[in-house]
């Protein structure tokens, strides 16, 4: 009888029961990990036992190192807080404090991480060393994912192995067989990439990871060299791949898009470029989990999915898509962020949908968040950085439509002195951008700054925002 994934103890337990691990790999840009080597070895030196039961921050630079650690720590750690690469070092102390972190696993030099206190620090490496595995207490590890929030510190979203694997259990058999080689343009330390990682590792496949600083051409060449069969990314990732001369090198049977609105142009372009592939787009969010997959090659999704009883239930409230399922995260780690779901268990995705005929289409975000190539940007956090400049009275950040990455950040700034000389204006712009460059990752830096004489303030005393 087939055992549901979520009843097994850990990823490692599952792998140790699977056949053929010696032919299965995680491939990074600078190395590889054979899954059977990992079952008989460790990427953590001799430190695994010391990490048992701890709340661990995984802050590895290299995705391959992070992947090996995730396999080793599931079922061993009480909590794994997975740090994506764009989290600034100044945000780390607050994450550590709020998540009760008492150990850090990293492949960085100790001085590279800005954190103090009584923390166990363990070095990880994708170079697997042989190690005996002693029996250890099983922990139902909490997986904590970080997403952008309105404040400067990231929101921490708690998943369990059960919520993470629920969408995988019901996915098609074609994704699980031996010989499936997954590739992803995502980073596996975010929800979209983590789903691909788990699909590969728990579904008898192998996985080709991207590598920091690697060109898209080199990544596509590696995907081709490993004969990738299933390839996943955001519409922005795919647009970029199609603009590379190496796009034709990979010949996936299955092309998946998620993380952003998939418009008809990119769906058509992919189907025409990969005529023998199934082109599928999916809707998922870190909070609500994977909601659905659309396989008919059309943008939007069929209205028949709405209001249906089943594993995933969806409805619309105030034009926003609400989802209830066993795939949703269990809670915000920081209680200050409030409840994830309403009292009936529905998570408000904040994604505005519009029904036209028998289909729903995504129209943007209800809370004004900007989706830059699958990465969320809250205007408030960018405004807070711009407003640090002493010449700025106030600012408002909006989304500017981009047909390549969905949205871009643009800023309107109201200065204390309303009509600066043009030289002064250029200097101010440069200074504001420098503050942004120092304090924000690249996708949050405004691509345009406009001076405005005034900004509307609503009756609430807040900036009047025009949302989707």
């Amino acid at each position, binding site marked *: 009888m087939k055992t549901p994934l979520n009843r097994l103890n850990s990823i490692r337990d599952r792998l140790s029961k699977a056949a053929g691990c010696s032919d299965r790999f995680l491939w990074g840009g600078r190395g590889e990990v054979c899954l059977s080597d990992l079952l008989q070895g460790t990427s953590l030196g001799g430190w695994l036992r010391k990490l048992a039961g701890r709340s661990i921050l995984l802050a590895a630079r290299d995705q391959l190192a992070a992947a090996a650690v995730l396999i080793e720590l599931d079922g061993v750690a009480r909590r794994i807080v997975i740090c994506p690469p764009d989290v600034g070092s100044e945000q780390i102390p607050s994450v550590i404090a709020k998540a009760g972190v008492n150990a850090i696993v990293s492949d960085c030099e100790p001085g590279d991480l800005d954190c103090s206190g009584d923390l166990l620090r363990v070095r990880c490496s994708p170079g697997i060393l042989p190690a005996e595995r002693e029996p250890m207490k099983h922990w139902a590890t909490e997986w904590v994912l970080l997403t952008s929030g309105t404040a400067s510190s990231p929101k921490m979203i708690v998943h369990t192995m059960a919520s993470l694997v629920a969408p995988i259990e019901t996915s098609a058999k074609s994704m699980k067989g031996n010989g499936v080689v997954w590739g992803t343009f995502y980073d596996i330390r975010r929800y979209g990439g983590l789903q691909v990682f788990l699909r590969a590792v728990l579904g008898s496949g192998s996985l080709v990871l991207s590598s920091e600083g690697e060109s898209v*051409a080199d990544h596509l060449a590696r995907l081709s060299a490993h004969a990738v069969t299933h390839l996943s990314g955001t519409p922005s990732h795919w647009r*970029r791949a199609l603009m590379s*001369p190496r796009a034709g090198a990979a010949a996936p049977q299955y092309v998946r898009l998620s993380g952003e609105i998939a418009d008809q142009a990119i769906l*058509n*372009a992919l189907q025409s470029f990969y005529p023998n592939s199934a082109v599928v787009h999916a809707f998922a969010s870190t909070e609500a989990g994977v909601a659905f997959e659309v396989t008919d090659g059309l943008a939007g999704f069929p209205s028949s999915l709405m209001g249906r009883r089943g594993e995933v239930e969806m409805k619309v409230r105030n034009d926003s898509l609400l989802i209830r399922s066993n795939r949703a995260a269990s809670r915000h780690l920081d209680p200050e962020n409030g409840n994830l779901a309403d009292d009936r268990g529905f998570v408000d995705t904040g994604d505005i949908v519009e029904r036209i005929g028998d289909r729903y289409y995504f129209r943007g975000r209800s809370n004004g968040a900007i989706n830059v190539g699958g990465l969320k940007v809250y205007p408030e956090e960018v405004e807070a950085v711009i407003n640090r400049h002493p010449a700025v009275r106030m600012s408002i950040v909006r989304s500017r439509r981009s047909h*390549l990455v969905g949205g871009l950040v643009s800023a309107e700034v109201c200065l204390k002195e309303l009509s600066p000389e043009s030289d002064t204006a250029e200097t101010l712009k440069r200074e504001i951008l420098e503050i942004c460059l120092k304090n924000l990752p690249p996708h949050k830096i405004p691509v*345009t700054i406009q001076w405005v004489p005034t900004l509307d303030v609503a009756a609430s005393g807040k900036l009047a925002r025009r949302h989707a």
Partner: protein
Amino acid sequence: MSIRAIVYSEIEQIRQKPGKHLPQLTDDLPLVESGLDSLGVAILVTRLEDNLGLDPFATSGFTSPPVTLREFIRLYEDAAQPS
């Protein structure tokens, strides 16, 4: 200034990264290998929209995705032609 010159000039401005080796821009160079990442290409398209009043990606940009700089420039030149 020709569309080609404007495209070259904008790419040079966006891709400035101290200490990073950047390839010389030529018409045969693939755009994604010009030193612009995904965000950089999107910024380029935004700046060209402000500069030229054109966004060919809004209409036909992915019918035949441009790979080289020559193809990218041609997309704008075609869009600038009165129909």
